């Protein structure tokens, strides 16, 4: 499974590398585009020293963690959301009869290695935040845990979005609100958002476990919304539950898939 994923990724990478200048330009422009998100954070903190109780460097830490997880998924999984195009064009039928899982074929479909620029950009921000913040080294073990569970959560979201497109072939853009919207949501400390919204993204859609709850532990901060301390460590559990739901939804979507017949 992993090997077929890598083979397909390598095939698309070679295709992209055929135009080297274009590839280099796309890496550069991709990182500049995501850098505008950081620029916005910097502009905001140029006007204030603390946003919803968090300093600039703390906000950059939260941004960096979520950014690394999100951009890795954007690179390796987000091609799934092109599924409605394949359903409409009838090319999804061909994927079903090939001896590779359709999920892998979709995730690698037109894989864009140039998105590595976004990953690097987020990693640089995270590295900067770790360097300037005086964090307790005894809590840093949480960092890889939160990045991995973040990756699982975002990958599950994209899978859910793809599964939803089996039904929403006419308006696949709805799912962007959840996938890219989650990316936007996790860029800022959750204390900036309204209480009901934060409840929703904690107990319904577990986005709070990407960087907010575990991030509070790493930064050694109390939750302004007063959730109990054990919630800081629930990230992996939330990720596994969401992944199982996503797998179920994807299987249901495949099972109920009806070809357009074209």
């Amino acid at each position, binding site marked *: 499974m992993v090997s077929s994923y890598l083979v397909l990724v390598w095939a698309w990478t070679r295709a992209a590398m055929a*135009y080297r200048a274009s590839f280099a330009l796309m890496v550069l422009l991709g990182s500049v585009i995501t850098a505008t998100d950081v*620029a*916005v954070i910097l502009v905001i903190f140029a006007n204030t020293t603390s946003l919803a109780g968090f300093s600039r460097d703390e906000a950059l830490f939260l941004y960096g963690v979520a950014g690394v997880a999100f951009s890795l998924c954007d690179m390796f999984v987000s091609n799934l959301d092109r599924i409605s195009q394949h359903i409409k064009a009838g090319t999804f039928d061909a994927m079903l009869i090939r001896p590779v899982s359709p999920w892998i074929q979709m995730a690698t479909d037109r894989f864009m290695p140039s998105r590595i620029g976004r990953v690097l950009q987020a990693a640089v921000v995270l590295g900067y935040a770790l360097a300037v913040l005086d964090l307790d080294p005894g809590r840093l073990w949480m960092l890889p845990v939160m990045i991995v569970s973040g990756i699982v959560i975002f990958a599950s979201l994209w899978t859910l979005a793809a599964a939803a497109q089996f039904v929403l072939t006419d308006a696949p853009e709805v799912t962007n609100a959840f996938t890219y*919207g989650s990316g936007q949501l996790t860029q800022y400390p959750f204390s*900036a958002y309204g209480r009901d919204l934060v409840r929703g993204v904690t107990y319904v859609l577990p986005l709070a476990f990407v960087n907010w709850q575990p991030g509070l532990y790493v930064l050694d901060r109390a939750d302004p919304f007063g959730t109990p301390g054990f919630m800081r460590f629930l990230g992996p559990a939330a990720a596994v539950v969401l992944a199982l739901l996503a797998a179920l939804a994807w299987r249901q979507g495949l099972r109920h898939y009806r070809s357009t017949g074209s």
Partner: protein
Amino acid sequence: MASQPEIRLRSRAAPADNPALPSAGPCTGSGTERHRAITIRRCATIPLYARLVRYGFRKHATYVWAALAGAFTNSVFGVLRAYVLIALWDARPGLAGYDVVHAVTFCFITQAFIGPMQLFGGGLTVPERIRSGDIALDLVRPASLQLWSMAEDLGRAGYLALARGIPPLLLGAALFGIVWPAGAGHWAAFLTAFAAGWAVSFAWRYLVALSVCWLVDDRGANAFSLVLTTPCSGMMVPLVLVPGPLGEVVRATPFAAMVQAPADVYMGTADVPRTLALQAFWAVALLALGALGTRAIRHKVVIQGG
């Protein structure tokens, strides 16, 4: 019996040929009877472009669900951005001459602009037609390619202003409360600024589209345009927050004329004549560049062999 009057009517309604000229053969041309009739038709540009506007509108009106899905996504992003700006204005009340309600309004009006102003780029068929070679046909049509595209784009913008512009505003009003223009004069100023912003947006996207003629692939140019539009237009963060000389520069770009300028006119936080002048300057300058580019690609297409 029944068909006879109809025939008579038709012959009466036929275009008045010029009896002073020699009668027209199969090849009508200058100096023949039919010539004037053809010239009249060629001058009928206003109805032609009006029809193109309507077609552009109807073409996009076909995809109702896609537009509503876009409106939904824009609204969600509006809510997320609004919370961040509310937190900022809570920390700094009255920052940059805006109140919290202005900051919230700014979020939703800029999200409402994404559809009609096509802020993520594209929206024109020109790049595809250049790649496929169909552009050769467009260039020999007795209508300007630029005006043709502009008319279609106006129809698109009109539809998306309704389908993707109004829902985010209504949601913003319901959730947080936003400011509305006071009085007819204010509405007129806003609609003018909105139209001018659209003109700048079209002129810019048309230039990006024409670049395909030289670059063959439009992805690079589109990404470049996105890099400039996203931060410099004000759709991420109000440009009034950008400090120092950088702020001055950013607020004078054509991208600011697409989003920041009409948003400020909407909220009544702008010096209206100055804002409209900035927008008019960019619209005229970029449209003129587009006209030059259209002339240039005529030659380019011939070189490529059409």
